[in-house]
Structure formats: structure tokens, C-alpha cells
């Protein structure tokens, strides 16, 4: 059993070490797994369970609560077209119909070449820019059917690869704490102690002085 590749396995250990309790790393590791494979496989969940000292059932239970974790294979680009009020009034239904025709799959489906998954989405909170869609959660505003075709052509040709990474990649810049500045995870047994900021505050206050 080994789902994570070497680089991500190292990263996974680093992520786990950030938290007082291993379990806290569950969702960050689900993101990492989705980044590696594009979706979350059973192998991934089993490995995450052993990394965070939990069970695969708990990993699936936690992950499946979240819409953005995919537990079935999705395309390289997941296209979410907003179908809520403002977008609908400004032509979202036509856009979705057009997208279905253009991609040859119903909303919810994935093209046979594995490039695109089309989904109907709830409000994307950009009503002033309706109709909107997201490609791998990157916004496109005021999208016309022509714009949509051009986007699909560009994505298929690999022209937007710098702008929109493949599904599962949250950000290209990774959080990094230099070792000399890292204080490490708190000891879970310390939970009855006052929080660190209170202790450090007390130390900062000069002797005998008061606010």
C-alpha cells in the first residue's frame, strides 16, 4: 500500500507534524491526495487513515461531507456553471445546455477523453458578473456561449495551463514555515494550560508594571 509518491509522502509527514493531534491533518491530507490524483481514491483514504491514526471509514465520512472532494474520477478540468438566480436570469440555462452539447455529456458527467467534468453549481457569490462559471474553482465572469467554446478550445490545446492548474491543485505556492521559525506542534496533553499568547503576554509585561 503506497498511494502518495515520494515527494508527497514527505510533505504528508510534514503536514502531520504541524498539528498537536495527527487526526487534525486529515483534511489537508485529503487535499494533497486530490492534488496528486485529481480525485480521492480508496488507496488514498486507506493511507491517510494510517497516517492520521484513524480508520478509512472516518476519512471517507469526513471527506464526503465536502462537495469539493471528489470520490469518483473527474476530468482534468471541472467546470462549474452557476445556475442560481442572477446567473439564471442572465442566461445560465442556455449556457449549461450549450456546454452539454459542446462537451457531449450531461451536467455531472465527464468527457470520454478525461479532460472535462461539467457540473451545475449553486451561487458562486459573483452575482454582479453573471453568468459565471468556475474552472477548477477559478472564476470566469459574464460567460457567453462563444466565450465558453473559446475557453474549452484553449483548455484542450493546453493554452491556459499557467492560469488554471489541473483539478485538485489548490495553489502553486505552498505554505512553508522555515525550520528556524517553527515552534512545532503543541503537546495535546497541555490543553489544560492557559493559551500560549497569555503566557507570553505575561512574560512580556515588565516586572512590577501594570497596564
Amino acid at each position, binding site marked *: 500500500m503506497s498511494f502518495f509518491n515520494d515527494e508527497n509522502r514527505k510533505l504528508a509527514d510534514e503536514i502531520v507534524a504541524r498539528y498537536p493531534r495527527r487526526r487534525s491533518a486529515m483534511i489537508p491530507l485529503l487535499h494533497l491526495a486530490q492534488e496528486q490524483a485529481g480525485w480521492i481514491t*480508496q488507496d488514498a*483514504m486507506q493511507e491517510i487513515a494510517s497516517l492520521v491514526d*484513524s*480508520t*478509512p*471509514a*472516518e*476519512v*471517507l*465520512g*469526513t471527506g*464526503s*461531507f465536502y462537495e469539493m472532494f471528489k470520490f469518483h474520477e473527474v476530468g482534468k478540468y471541472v467546470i462549474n456553471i452557476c445556475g442560481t438566480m442572477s446567473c439564471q436570469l442572465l442566461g445560465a440555462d442556455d449556457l449549461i445546455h450549450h456546454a452539454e452539447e459542446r462537451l457531449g455529456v450531461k451536467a455531472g458527467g465527464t468527457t470520454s477523453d478525461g479532460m472535462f467534468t461539467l457540473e451545475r453549481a449553486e451561487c458562486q457569490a459573483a452575482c454582479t458578473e453573471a453568468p459565471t462559471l468556475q474552472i477548477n474553482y477559478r472564476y470566469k465572469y459574464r460567460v457567453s456561449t462563444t466565450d465558453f467554446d473559446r475557453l474549452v478550445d484553449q483548455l484542450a490545446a493546453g493554452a491556459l495551463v499557467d492560469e488554471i492548474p489541473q483539478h485538485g491543485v489548490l495553489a502553486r505556492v505552498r505554505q512553508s514555515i522555515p525550520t528556524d521559525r517553527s515552534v512545532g506542534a503543541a503537546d495535546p496533553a497541555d490543553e489544560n494550560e492557559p493559551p500560549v499568547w497569555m503566557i507570553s503576554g505575561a512574560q512580556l509585561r515588565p516586572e512590577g508594571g501594570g497596564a
Partner: protein
Amino acid sequence: MTDVNQSASSTVAVTINGVDIDAHQGELLIAAAERNGVYIPRFCYHPRMDPVGMCRQCLVEVDTGRGMALQPSCMLTVSDGMQVDTESEKTKRAQEGMLELLLVNHPLDCPVCDKGGECPLQDQTLAFGPGESRMVEEKRHYEKPIPISDIVFLDRERCVLCDRCTRFAKDVAGDPLISFMQRGNETQVLTFPDDPFNSYFSGNTVQICPVGALTAKPYRFRARPWDLEEVESTCTTCSVGCGVAVQASRNELLRYQGVDVDEVNHGWLCDKGRFDFESVSSAERLRTPMLKNPDDAAELVGTEWNSALNAAADALRDRSVGIIGGARLTNEDAYAWSKFARTVVGTNNIDAQLADGLDATMIASLPKATIHDACSADTVLLIGPDLKEELPVLFLRLRGAAEKRMTKIVEITTAPTGLTRYAAESHTSTPGALAHDVSNVLDADPSLTTGRVVVIVGRANLAASPSEVEEAVGVLQRRIPAATYLPALRRGNVMGAIDMGLTPDLLPGRVSLEVGREWFENAWGTVPDAAGLDTAGMLEAASAGRIDTLVLLGADPIVDVPDRDLVERALAGVSTIVAVDNFATTSVRRADIVLPASGYAEKGGTTTNIEGRVSALGQLVTPPGTARADWMIAAELAYRLGGDLGLESVGDIAAEIATVVPSHLAPTPELSPETLLEESDVGDTSDDDDEQVPVVPSIDVPAPAGWVAPAMSEMKPADSYALRLVARRSLYDAATATAMSPSIAHLAESAAIRIHSSELARLGLTAGDHVNVTSSKTTIAIPVAPDDSISRGVVVMGVNQPGVGAGELIDLRSAVTEIQLETR
């Protein structure tokens, strides 16, 4: 787990529906109300689990000084001056609304649902529901029941998402193998694909499910609650003594339900204890006495009681006799057999332990701890078996206490156990060196010797001599004089058997032969002079031809005594074997005379658990065929041997125990002989009690036996070419209770030898290969399984798994069992 009794320190004044009640500080409102006779409806709240406020059914109007507002009473602790209205219009509307919502998707398939008739959803809909629904929409549909384990089925349509089963699995059992999946309207309880809910405690989820979503295979479509008869009893599958409600219909056991005994099981049962009722009504039960066919030694032929008892009496008359077993018996049975052996047969050769236990004198004389003591001790020192495998509900209690930081577990073990994960410290011990290892651990951390220390003591390794445990107890007694002890002996009523004198060195009441002689000669007329032999001694004597007749009192030494070779020689060396048993076990099939005994729930009486707690056994069904209670068999044999035990009913025996047995001179009121007389349906329970039980007021009550620990012996240097064997038990094994219960029999893993993967590689083996395992006794072939949690130089093997048992390899006389592995 909210413990009402422990938080009773101070009270707060709460008014419920205009009536002032006294509530305990820290108590939940729903619990305080119930204790004062006001039932608030609920689905998710369970008194033994932390509240989650999941179902919202317990909403009531509460005023804590800021005006009346609806609040979930399971999430609210009582506070001074709290005003509660559980009957207001608003409360009623809220509760009706919740039920209407819970029923939106509930299929209402009550006529075909096993829960119908005992369903909290049904009951509370009737009591608190709106009576009708405004929902006309199609209900949610799922595949009807899906198996989530070999035993438990899940019907997601019926589920109301109360989080009881998932909370139990995670918080109580520590097996979070079921979880809520998806969300919103799609939320459902599921396992991970292909990772079933294989928990030793899965049956509890079925019992606490407030709807019919979870059902257990053994009870599915077997009965309706209103057809069930019920008696409260005590589980004797192991010696924890969990409270259990035994239920039967038409004279057939159908179900056990856990009963909440605060001191013991908190309402939980293990799956083996819950589902091995199937063995009681098994078609394999012995129904009639049998004698060996004189023409064909392999065949037992049915006969009637008179000839079988006469034959058995002949075999016991003026012969050298050994009696092995008795932990299956009730206290009353055990007393009758103890008295029979001593006064009629005239021998102290009687032992309820099968060379797999500990020195009975040590067990009887160590200062006792209760389960509560262990769960609240500063330190629990574990030098015993894997409690999860042998005493599962004790494991559950200790796990819960450790998770809530009420106690600290320090384990000294030869191989990881179910508690290793929850132990503050887990020290690895070398087989045979327990006393040294205990001493070293205490040296390294002297703080372990301070505060309240409870030692759980048992046999972690049946391939090493029990003397290592006795020496370790000696070390602990010297280093921690105030420590108390909880014996981890597994067999059902082994503690009761020891208390009743089914042990060579002790008379009933844990008194030694010397100290108790005068008292018991007075009570019984006679006590044999010659010291008795324990099981190992009896088997040695039998193999040397010094025992003529061996009585197997519910014992199967061939599989249970960890020295197969010795047992075989012993059985071959005696002239007659008399077996008193429920089943034709491997050993019983070798007997000359077989007497069928009544089993669990077929007789009344009492049983004693590891703490020494005596609790009642209920009688509900009749024994199969002509099987009889063990005490009756003893009484019949005594009569045929010209003696008279003077015991004619369970009530008689209980009365005699209460007057004669020093440790039982003041029985608890609910277990008094009078109650047992009333409850017992067995034998003559008439009140014309003209026979006087012997009373011995003039003699001082004999004091319990004392025990002197052996000195630490030198450690045997390890043979660097050999591996040391650790022989342990698993919950599901080849023993009759499991093997005769079809629902759990297949859960017993077949025999394998577990070893660190580096050792495996060194020997050039891969998992599943059969190897030849050689000890001083014999060579057996067995598959290997890698297990990196096991130390190098040690191999672990089951004592009684289907296939081949560790007993083949073990020599009871050696301190440790060294083995060698060879490829075949």
C-alpha cells in the same frame, strides 16, 4: 459516560413543571428529569455516552433567568433556579414537529420490522407525536438491509441519524469502522467499502439503535417482543459478569440484551457473550446419558440415567479419583461438587482451573480490587492476558477510563494487546522473565509505586510457567504493599469455583485445608486428610497410573490444558473417564460414562465475577432431553455411593452456603436463600424445611488462606537459536460456546504462528507458508503470518484456534517454551 453516582456531591434546585426537584451538580437536565419521574423523549441521548444534541427530540422550554426558550435537555446541565416546562404548548409543538420531521423519510415498515413493539420511534411517536403528517412526497429509498458485518445488518431507510451507533463505535468501543457519510439529505451511516464493521462489540449498536435500522443476524425475524419471556441474569461467557436480560420464546433462547450494571458492564456486552446463546439451544447438546459401547470404544451409546449413574458410582467407589473442571458451574453446583468430592468420594483432587490459570491460594488471598477501583486508580498495572480477547467488557471499561484520563494504564506484556494503544506505558517483557521485567519497570519509574495502584493479574502467556506471574506478584507485594488486585481469569465462574473449594488446597470460603478442617469437619462430618492434586498434578498422576477414575466436570482438557501430550497420556492411563458436560467435546468423546448437564439459563443459582461480586443466574428454559443440573448429578452420585449431601434444591444449597461458607456468611439481601428459593424452579422448593442445615456457632470462623510469594528465580538464558513461544487466547476460538454458535463460529481465525517480518525474511519465508514448528514435545506444521508488532525472538500462537493448538508444543513442566522454525 456521565456517571450519575459519582457527581452526586452537591445539589441544585430545579423546577420542572412547577415541581421542585433536587438535581445533582453537573447532571444533564434530561437525566435529572428522568430520575424525578419526568420522561423527556429522546433518540440520540444515551446515559452511557457523551451527549451530541443530534436528534433535537428532547427540546423543552427552559428558563435560566432570561425567559423561557426551547433548549435540548440532553445538552444542558442543570443550574440553580432553572425553570423547566416539559408540557407547555411550545414544548409540545417542538416535539411533535421533530417527530414529524424524523418520519419524513422513515419507511414506517413496522409490520416487517424486528424493532416493532420495542421501538423508541414507535413508542415516542405514539406518546409525543403529532398523530399525522403533512408530508405527501415520495420517501428516500435505499437498498434494504445491507450487511455491514457478518453479524449486523443496516437498513438506511429506517435510520434517523441519531449518532448512537457511530458514537458507540468511536467513543466506547474504539472501533470507528462506521461513520456518517455524505451530508444533508444524503447523510447515511456506512462502513468504508470492503472494510466491514468487525468490532467485538458490534452487537451493542443493535441494542441501542432507537429504530430498526440495525439488526443482528441471530435475531432477525425470529420473534416479536411481546412473545418474549425474559429473566434478568448474569453472563457467564467470561468472568466479568455482565448484567444480561435473557429472552426466550417457546422454550428457546432467542436473544441476550445487556443490562446496565453500574459497577460492571454499563449495559454493554461483547459479541461473543451476546450471541453465544445459540450454543444453548444447539442441536448438538447432549440430551441423554451415554455409556461407551463395550464392542466399539469409539462409540457412545445412549442409556437411561439409572444405569449411567450406577456405572459412574461404581467407577468412583473405592478408587483413586481426580475431578477436573467446574468453572462452568453455578456457585451452588460448585458447592455441591466440592462437598461431594470431599465427603463422599473422599478426595481433595479437584481443580476448576485447567493448568491455564493461577495458584488458587494466591488468587483467594490477594487484596481484591473492583472494576471501579481499577477505572479510578492512579495506576493500573497490567500483567495479564489481552483483556480485549479474554475479558472484553473489562477492556471496554479500562479503555473508557484511560481515554477520559481517569486512570493510567501501565502494561508489561510479551506481545501487544488491545489496550496497548490506550496505555500510558507499554513495556515489552521476555517470555519467562515477567518478575524481572516488572522489577525493572518499577526501578525505572518509582512513581508507579505511589498512589492507588490496581494490578490486573493473569496469564499473558500459556507457554510460560505460571510461576513467572506468581514471582511477579511477589515483587509487586514487596514494592507496592498497598496495591489491590483484580484477577484476570477467564472461565465463566472460575472465581465462584475457587470460592466454593473446587481447588485442591482450599475449602469453601477460601480457607486452607488446615485452618478450615475443624469448621468443615463440624459442618460436613469429614474432610479428607491427604493433600489434593491440581489439574497438572492429576494428569501427571493419571499418566503414571496413580488415578483410576477421572471426572471431567465440564472440562475439555484435550484442547484447554496447554500440554496436549500430557493429557493424552493421562486419558490413556486412567481406567474410567466420567464426563459431565453440555456437549460431546473432544475429551467427552473419549469418556466411558457421559452425563448430560443442564446449561445456561436452564437452571437458577448464582455466579461470582472477577471482583468477587455474586450475582443471580436466571432460569428461563428447560434443559434438552433429560439433562440435569450439575448439583443434582452430585447428589445422585452421593446417594448411590451411600452418602447424602443433604441438598435437595438450589435454595437448600444457597441456604447451606450462607451458613457454612465463611466468606458467604452474610449474603446480600437480593441474593438471600429465601429469594433463591422463591425464584428457583429447579428441584423441590417446598417450604417444609424440616432438615436442619448444619450450624457451627461454637467454632471461630476460619480465616481466609494466606499466600507467600515464591522468590524470584534465576532467568533461564535464552537459546540464541530458538524462538520463545507466546501462547494466547482469542475471543473467537474453537471452544464450544463459539463453535456451537453458528453466527460467530466462523469468526474464529484459523491457527497461524505470528512472527516479526525480519525473522520471516531471515528464515526465507513468506506469509502463508507452512512451517515446521518444533518444541521439546513435538513438531507441527502451521502457516506463518508476519506481524511487526511482535518483538524479535518471540512468536505468538493461539491456544485453541481451529486447526492446530499451541498446547501441542507446550510442556507444563518447563518455565518457557522454546521452539525452532524450519521450512518444510
